């Protein structure tokens, strides 16, 4: 036998107790939606997981009303210390039910269990712990003494990190004293619904967090609702633009975390084996469904062939398959629609003359799958060097000097993140200084921490999430 064909090591689904049908979580309880309910499926085999309610305008109204009531009567009057207690409780419950949440996430999203188990869920708990600590220290957030909450926050989150994005939105909002109406993505509502049970378990006062499921129309209803004071959105730049228009001219505060086309810059003096790992982690983590993914590899010409060669060898060891198997490295693409987009852009890449290489891995018969793919001989003018693919596709470009690397890295309408690989500390600092990106990783990639602000330049959005800065997005000064 071949040792490398590791025997199946599936994570048990028995920890997950799913209902056949989920309603909307409004005012502390589940209730049926008045829109047409929809199915959420497993992208790994297209099997039906559960039926989920869709929120109509009336349902969104009810959710916002519940949030307003909770804000006026309970949450805004509660001391920071008491709000913190609820957040700590939620964080602990997330840890207690970590296995269950990880299984739900991998089942619904298609991401490998090792990522949901080792990255997503631990970060969710970390986010709630971090902001729980802030709840009674808002005087030090940067708005002076006694800053005030904004009121009701309407939040719309994407499908790539369903529960983590929920935590990024909900934790700072609650810590700052706001109440929330949040809509998880249409294809990945499951973990948010399990999270609703955690909120019940934590005895969070009804209406403080309302979770409404649905498609784009539900999101639009939240964003446009007149009684929403703050809108936070993570998703595509196209939708972000629509939201900015819808919010313009209203008193609503807005933060947008949108797309990216991050440059991962590898200098010739880089620690090469770790750089290869970083490139892999940068673009193939979460099937490349990462807004800050290092999708443009800028590699110094002198080491280009060596890097590409090593990269191909490394990619050949990645395991694509059942997201619930503990040894899976690459899971399923989240939806048929997204798979279509990845295929389309890859085809365009080939048509434009870039050279395509895909890892040789068996693609399962059912479900949505795309093998880890790299394009070499990509030019800055190619669409695959400019458009966000949001999939496991890496475009390799070259540069000759640090100045050229910086120029090429910045030559994008986006500016969410970037990576620099070099053994020379002074070069890392000098280059980082001139990159127009919100997050810059040095000799690592895709590392997240609740104390570190995250957000973009240019079309990657505005506002910061995480850290003290993330708190400011949910506060206003006492005098304001």
């Amino acid at each position, binding site marked *: 036998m071949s040792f490398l064909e*590791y*025997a199946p*090591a599936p994570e048990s689904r028995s920890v997950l107790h799913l209902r056949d049908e989920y309603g909307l979580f409004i005012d502390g309880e589940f209730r049926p939606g008045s829109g047409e309910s929809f199915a959420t499926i497993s992208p790994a085999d297209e099997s039906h997981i559960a039926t989920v309610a869709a929120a109509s305008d009336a349902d969104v109204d009810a959710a916002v009303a519940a949030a307003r009531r909770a804000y006026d009567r309970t949450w805004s009057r509660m001391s920071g210390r008491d709000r913190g207690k609820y957040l700590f409780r939620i964080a602990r419950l997330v840890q207690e039910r970590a296995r269950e949440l990880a299984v739900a996430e991998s089942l619904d999203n298609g991401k490998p269990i090792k990522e949901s188990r080792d990255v997503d869920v631990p970060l969710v708990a970390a986010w709630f712990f971090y902001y729980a600590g802030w709840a009674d220290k808002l005087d030090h957030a940067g708005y002076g003494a006694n800053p005030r909450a904004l009121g009701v926050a309407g939040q719309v989150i994407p499908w790539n990190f369903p529960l983590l994005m929920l935590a990024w939105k909900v934790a700072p909002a609650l810590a700052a004293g706001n109440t929330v109406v949040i809509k998880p993505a249409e294809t990945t509502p499951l973990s948010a619904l399990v999270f609703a049970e955690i909120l019940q378990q934590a005895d969070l006062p009804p209406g403080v967090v309302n979770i409404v499921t649905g498609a784009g129309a539900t999101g639009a209803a939240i964003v446009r609702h007149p009684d929403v004071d703050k809108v936070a959105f993570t998703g595509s730049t196209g939708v972000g633009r629509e939201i900015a228009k819808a919010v313009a001219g209203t008193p609503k505060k807005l933060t947008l975390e949108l797309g990216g086309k991050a440059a991962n810059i590898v200098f010739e*003096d880089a620690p090469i084996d*770790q*750089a290869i790992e970083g490139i892999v982690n940068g673009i193939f983590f979460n099937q490349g469904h990462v807004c800050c993914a290092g999708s443009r590899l800028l590699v110094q010409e002198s080491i280009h062939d060596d890097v590409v060669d090593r990269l191909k060898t490394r990619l050949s060891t990645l395991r694509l398959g059942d997201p619930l198997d*503990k040894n899976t490295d690459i899971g399923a693409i989240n939806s048929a629609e997204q798979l279509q987009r990845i295929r389309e852009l890859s085809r365009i890449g080939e048509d434009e003359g870039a050279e395509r290489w895909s890892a040789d891995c068996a693609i399962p018969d059912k479900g949505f799958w795309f093998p880890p793919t790299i394009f070499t001989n990509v030019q800055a003018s190619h669409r695959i060097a400019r458009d966000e693919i949001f999939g496991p596709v890496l475009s390799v470009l070259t540069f000759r000097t640090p100045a050229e690397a910086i120029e090429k890295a910045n030559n994008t309408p986006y500016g969410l993140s970037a990576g620099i690989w070099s*053994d020379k500390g002074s070069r890392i600092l000098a280059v980082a200084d001139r990159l127009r990106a919100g997050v810059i990783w040095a*000799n690592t990639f895709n590392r997240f921490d609740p104390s570190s602000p995250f957000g973009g330049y240019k079309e990657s959005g505005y506002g910061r999430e995480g850290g003290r800065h993330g708190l400011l997005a949910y506060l206003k000064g006492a005098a304001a």
Partner: protein
Amino acid sequence: MSRTDLQTLPERAMELLGGVPDDTTLRRYLHGLPGVDAVGLEQRAAGLGTRSIKTASKAWALDKIIELIDLTTLEGADTPGKVRSLVAKALNPDASDPTCPRVAAVCVYGDMVPYAVEALGAAHGDPDDKLVSVAAVATAFPSGRASLDVKLADTADAVANGADEIDMVIDRGAFLSGRYGVVFDQIARVKQACRRADGSYASLKVILETGELNTYDNVKRASWLAILAGGDFIKTSTGKVSPAATLPVTLLMLEVVRDWHRTTGERIGVKPAGGIRASKDAIKYLVAVAETVGEEWLQPHLFRFGASSLLNDVLLQRQKLTTGHYTGADYVTID
């Protein structure tokens, strides 16, 4: 068994170094290697450590670990009796299961080699033939603080007594002070001392003592140096210095071996030694080998565990897989 035709060795080293191997050429070469990022290396090692090896894979891995063990006793208190006991264990690791594979080799001090050879008798030989080799530590193990003549005599003596493999230590003092030429020369000379009367060579394992080298950059350079100078294996530690073998250090050495293979087509062995006591940890090493250099390396001429207590833990796990329940320390034998 030996990887190289020795005649070509200095030539290849000269070709790669661009000159005769001395402090200057070696420094230029070793310091020109890409650096190692400690955080990234450790992260990758931790990632490999999360592989879940179950059922059939686990059964295969446990047997493989046994086949790759250098069962070791390196104590001042070692006696012929202790060595005979070790050899008996090496030949028949699980008294309750005759199908249990033998270990690759026993590893002893030089003066114990004759007793090991005698105790093995007809079972002495190449692990590829299901026989057990004798490895001897030499060159003033573990410190390496002796004159070159003494180190060479130490080596030649063990080889003459029937050692199949020599585990030498490098001069860490010379390495850390930048005298790479001295380290290179010593390894090359010890390699010559591994020559037997019939012209064949005992396999040479070069112990870097990574716990004393301290940085990953040093480990990488020492690995290249040892291979350039003619080592057949690079080995992490003597087991007498803490930390001994770690997964990140072993991963780094495997990466060097992989790169050497890419450059020259030659296969060099890796031996983590010291501190690996649990089956669970040993399986992580197998994963690191298979996913870094390839499964082909999971054979006694290319990978070894230097260990003593590991064997019994593997046997307990093996019994658990067969019978479905855990036994206890008294169901496996002490040496």
